[in-house]
């Protein structure tokens, strides 16, 4: 199954608002999760969910970021020396802290990828301004095919003039937005949140 197909299925299965709220709760659970094993499990589950959601997930980029964060933490020696290989010195606490920070960093990215999408509508005045910007963004996207490398400046400028002049300032949010109606997968979201909350509670008790 291709990425776009996975994305369509994911969006058909979950409503944007309950999915975003579940993502926010899971992010909080992750931050309270003690120990490396729990965060590693969280990272694995979140990566799988992000892949299922059809968002762009690059294992190579994730590995580079994790290696960078761990490497930076190893520069400051903390704890017992566990490996010395030429100029490389690995200290236990530095390695542990680096891995914990790196896994948390990437797991939060994966939770966000799985739980957030452009169909989410924010409430209030800020939300309506935000929705107006998103509608305008859609119009810019419609014009992007007209931009050519040879006439880049002129094409971009023509697109900006066309989209800006086309905004009449009376764009109302679409009524009865189908994006926020209940969808079949929504009933599973409370269980996912409950499972994450229980896992954190058990990990805290077991410490």
């Amino acid at each position, binding site marked *: 199954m291709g990425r776009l197909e996975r994305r369509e299925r994911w969006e058909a299965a979950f409503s944007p608002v309950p999915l975003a709220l579940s*993502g*926010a709760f899971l*992010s909080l659970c992750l931050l309270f999760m003690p120990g490396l094993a729990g965060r590693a499990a969280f990272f694995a589950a979140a990566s799988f969910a*992000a892949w299922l959601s059809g*968002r762009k997930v690059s294992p190579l*980029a994730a590995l*580079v*970021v994790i290696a*960078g*964060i761990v490497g*930076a*933490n190893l*520069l*400051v020696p903390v704890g017992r020396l566990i490996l010395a290989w030429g100029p490389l010195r690995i200290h236990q606490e530095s390695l542990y*802290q680096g891995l914990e*920070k*790196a896994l*948390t*960093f990437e797991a*939060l*990215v994966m*939770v*966000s*990828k*799985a*739980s*957030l*999408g*452009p169909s*989410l509508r*924010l409430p209030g005045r*800020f939300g309506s*301004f*935000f929705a*107006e*910007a*998103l*509608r*305008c*963004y859609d*119009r*810019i*996207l419609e014009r*992007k095919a007209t931009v050519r490398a040879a006439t880049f*400046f002129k094409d971009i*400028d*023509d697109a*900006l*003039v066309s*989209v*800006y*002049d086309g*905004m009449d*300032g009376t764009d109302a949010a679409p009524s009865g937005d189908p994006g926020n109606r209940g969808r079949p997968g929504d009933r599973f979201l409370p269980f996912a949140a409950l499972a994450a909350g229980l896992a954190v509670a058990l990990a805290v008790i077991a410490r």
Partner: protein
Amino acid sequence: MTSSMPRSASEKRRLAAFLAALAFFLSAVEYMLPRPVPFMRVGLANLPILFAVELLPWGWYLALALVKVAGMSLLTGSLFSYVAVFSLAGTMASALVMRGLYALAGPKAISWVGLCVAGAVASNLTQALLARVIVFGESARYMIPAFLGLGLVSGLVLGVFAELFSARSAWLAGVRGRRDGQA
């Protein structure tokens, strides 16, 4: 550089929404470009904030900066992660420094390049300090020179692009002309 604020509330809102949409679009363009280092980027999405320095009043300017961060975080799916915290801190630092410099120096005393470099350096320095607290710890001090160097280079590149675009853009001339017509 000239000062050109729209006068009516609906015009300000329309312009702010348009600039936010442009930031989302440029963010998507930049997302597709390959990066030699994960944290390194030119900051194309900051161009609308740069132009907004002269086009929008303070309130809408800050709303634009917030919507830019929220929108980019939603579209790239990073709103609940540290990435959004870095983005918010960097964007707000850059926006406040650019707008503050513009208010202090005035439109004739500072160029787009100057504003851009100041904004990029402020953004990268803020993110480096945040990185010290969140991910890199004490080692962040080794990265600050590199972060500042990257800020300088990306600010220069973006500033030159802004100068060229500003000189040739019919859209920007139209927005400025509309303000002059309303005044």
